[in-house]
């Protein structure tokens, strides 16, 4: 009986400690916010096309397979919409769609998109700031804020956000490589 109690205590601790930790971390001020920044050896107008053009976007955002424009006449600019199609390897390779609407569009320096998963799992905001550093160099700052609608995803937010940030850092590093490679060719 003594051992059964000990085992029960160990298992309870294994469940309670992570649960309490996640609940506490879920209330931090920057919950759901991921940031990444990179300095690229190319002028802002060259970098801008990589953020705005769907075909180019697919090259540096990993797991993005397609970018659709519901209204091809108004593909860019304030109020324009685009649908990002992503392959979800963690969900059996299924395709997920994210509807994005431009809420700020000031080329070649600022872009903000309101994003929402078409299945209603999350919504949020994705913004890009391009700072001209002079001498043909640009600093790209990207910030993503996500709010999870499902309670379990919301509960796991302290685990999701750091992984999202890590992925974002890898993506902007890929963006840097691609932009600089194209800039060298020119």
């Amino acid at each position: 009986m003594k051992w059964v109690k000990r085992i029960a205590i160990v298992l309870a601790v294994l469940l309670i400690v992570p649960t309490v930790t996640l609940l506490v971390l879920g209330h931090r001020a920057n919950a759901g916010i991921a940031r990444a920044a990179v300095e690229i050896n190319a002028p802002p107008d060259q970098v801008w096309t990589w953020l705005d053009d769907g075909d180019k976007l697919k090259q540096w955002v990993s797991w993005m397979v397609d970018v659709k424009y519901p209204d091809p006449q108004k593909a860019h600019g304030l109020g324009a919409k685009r649908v990002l199609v992503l392959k979800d390897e963690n969900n059996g390779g299924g395709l997920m769609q994210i509807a994005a609407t431009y809420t700020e569009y000031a080329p070649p320096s600022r872009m903000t998109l309101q994003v929402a998963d078409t299945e209603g799992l999350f919504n949020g905001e994705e913004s890009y700031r391009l700072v001209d550093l002079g001498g043909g160099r640009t600093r790209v700052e990207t910030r993503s804020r996500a709010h999870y609608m499902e309670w379990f995803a919301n509960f796991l937010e302290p685990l999701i956000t750091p992984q999202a940030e890590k992925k974002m850092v890898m993506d902007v590093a890929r963006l840097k490589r691609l932009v600089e490679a194209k800039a060298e060719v020119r």
Partner: protein
Amino acid sequence: MKPPAWAQLVLWAVAGENEAEFVAGDLHEEFLLLCAAEGRSTGSRWYVRQVLRSAATLLGLRFRSGEAAHLVAAALVAVAMPLLLLDRLWSFVYSNIPFKDGLQRAPGFWAANVVCVCVCAAVCGSLARTFVRAMGVALAAAVGAGCALWCSAATAPLFYAGLVILAAPASSMAVFAWRRSR
């Protein structure tokens, strides 16, 4: 003169409580005779061959006696199930990344898996009453961990896979030995 330790451990792990002592005794007797007649290396080779050849039969006997059912249950419930559940949990976490991500996991997630598997295998080891049963539990824990790794969606690094397969039986045996010493 002693036969190879790993072969002895395999024998204790696969044989049931009723058979382990007799089979080990008989093999040891033959081993000593062979060592005296043809040398230690021939004796060791013969011992290993005998253990490997009789492993399936001994395991079959153990299953038929019903004893193995506990081990399979221990391996599935205590080791494979938590690992698979954690794998699903990490898949869910990665699936909720707004711009998605692949099947690679952060080192922290791998570490959580190893800790969880060690604790669960240790709990199983603490429940074993005899050495033979503890060896069986340890073997089942390693097999359970291997099965869970094989079924998991994530791309597991080789180092992590080896660590899990070794840590599960090691923690099970360590807790058994610690409990027996008290």
